[in-house]
């Protein structure tokens, strides 16, 4: 009797273990359940000051912060962040960039959308040949230069 009870208990335990294992496998095999709050992405790899827009302005964005469509993500100087969509798309922002979280666009399009706010004016880069730099000091003869130097105080060197 006792041994039969033990056997039954053992079978029940095995059944429970098997059920739990099966349930766990089902859960693991499903895509990660997303919050049902309208958010479609989150911040990852936050480095430096990353700001996220809200109704009343901008606020610091922390790691794993969930993002709604229409949210703007702004990186300040020396900051970087990745906006990771729930479908796996990863959009990387470097410093001084802005990105608006949008729904329904291909990942390739999203990845190209971060906009650099501070851009060094490329058009101002001048060729060496046309740079005219004002002279600091004119020519001197040895006599006048030595005379001038013997009259001035010693230099830091």
């Amino acid at each position, binding site marked *: 009797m006792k041994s039969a009870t033990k056997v039954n208990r053992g079978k029940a335990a095995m059944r429970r273990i098997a059920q739990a294992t099966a349930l766990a496998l089902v859960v693991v095999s499903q895509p990660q359940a997303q919050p049902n709050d309208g958010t479609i992405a989150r911040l990852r790899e936050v480095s430096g000051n990353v700001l996220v827009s809200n109704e*009343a302005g901008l606020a*610091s964005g922390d790691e794993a912060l969930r993002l709604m469509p229409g949210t703007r993500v702004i990186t300040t100087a020396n900051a970087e962040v990745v906006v990771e969509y729930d479908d796996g798309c990863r959009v990387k922002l470097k410093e001084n960039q802005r990105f608006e979280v949008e729904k329904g666009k291909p990942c390739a399009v999203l990845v190209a959308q971060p906009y650099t706010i*501070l851009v*060094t004016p490329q058009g101002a880069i001048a060729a060496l040949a046309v740079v005219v730099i004002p*002279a600091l000091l004119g020519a001197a*003869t*040895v006599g006048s230069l030595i005379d001038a130097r013997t009259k001035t105080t010693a*230099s*830091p060197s």
Partner: protein
Amino acid sequence: MDRVVAWRAATVALALLLLWRIIAVNAVLFDATGRPQWPAAATGAAPDRSALAAVLRENPGEVAALLVVAQDLERAGDPVRAAKAYESALSVAPADRDVLQMSADFFLRHGRLREATRQLDRLAEHYGAYDRVFPALARLLPVKDSGWDAIVERNPAWLGAFVVTACRQSVDPGLLAPLLQRRAATGRATAPETECITERLRESGQWEAAYQVWLNTLPRERLGNVGSVFNGGFEHAASGIGFDWRPSLGPDRQVGHAVEFATTAGAIGKRALRVTYNGKPQAAPAIRQFMAVVPGRYELSGVARIDALNSVRGVQWTLRCAARDGLSTRLAASERFLGSSEWRPFAFEAVVPEGCPGQVLQLEPAGMDEGTTFLSGTAWFDELRLTRRR
């Protein structure tokens, strides 16, 4: 015993230094076989080479003679040896004013911009001479591989003066923004630098860039919550620059009012905005703040307390679209505040249209555009917020 050893070591080091200087100078004057490298041709303007050689033989460290040798070599069409002479002079006297100036000039003439920038950096560092050095550095700023990266990396103390000077002399603020950013990152950015660059960007219509530059200068603790209305709770003193509050300038007796962020009972937090009008004519806003919000529908809200504000028209908050020519289009206005009331909430809707990248929120005499008005009494405001409406 240790002292003796140290003294001997110092003596040997000094002797080696002198020997090295002699070698360096002789490398300019003579080739490997010992023949003078001096140009044979002589013109009426050429220096007395025998005198120069005598000077240098007597004192190889005589930088004046080295400089003249360098100039003479350049004039004779030998920039390679001229460069060596300047380099010798720099090695002998690396912080000598004449050496720095003349070598910088030489390197600039011959397109050796990194070397020129290095000497200009030293000139500014040791002698100031900003009126001469800064214009040259400003011209080098937009040039690729000019050596400015080394200066930015070094972040010298004179860089702040350069930023302000260059900004006020109309150097492209986009070129100066990275310098300000570097200084802000090390806590060295000053208010005049931030003010000039953000103003220049704003006035040129680059509102987003101006806002970003200003954001980058805020201390980390102020970045936790940057409202569309910055410091809408008036808990921090107004800096008067960028996108912070700008109280009107001038003595109370002239502008007709006094603006303070004062403590008071009933305020949310410790402080609130207090504007005290002294009965004199008012023709301008008491306080204002530039903003750079995206187009859309908004609600501006806050709380107000009015103490015997005697006026025909009162005061009101207005949101205007800031234009480049200084004029502005009114987008929305609050109710008119006058009389007396306890703390109470207020709110009004505002629509920021497309094509309005920058705005200004200001507390002004109601009907200001219609002419001067007289005001006396006190108005308190707190918790101003601009909230986006979907």
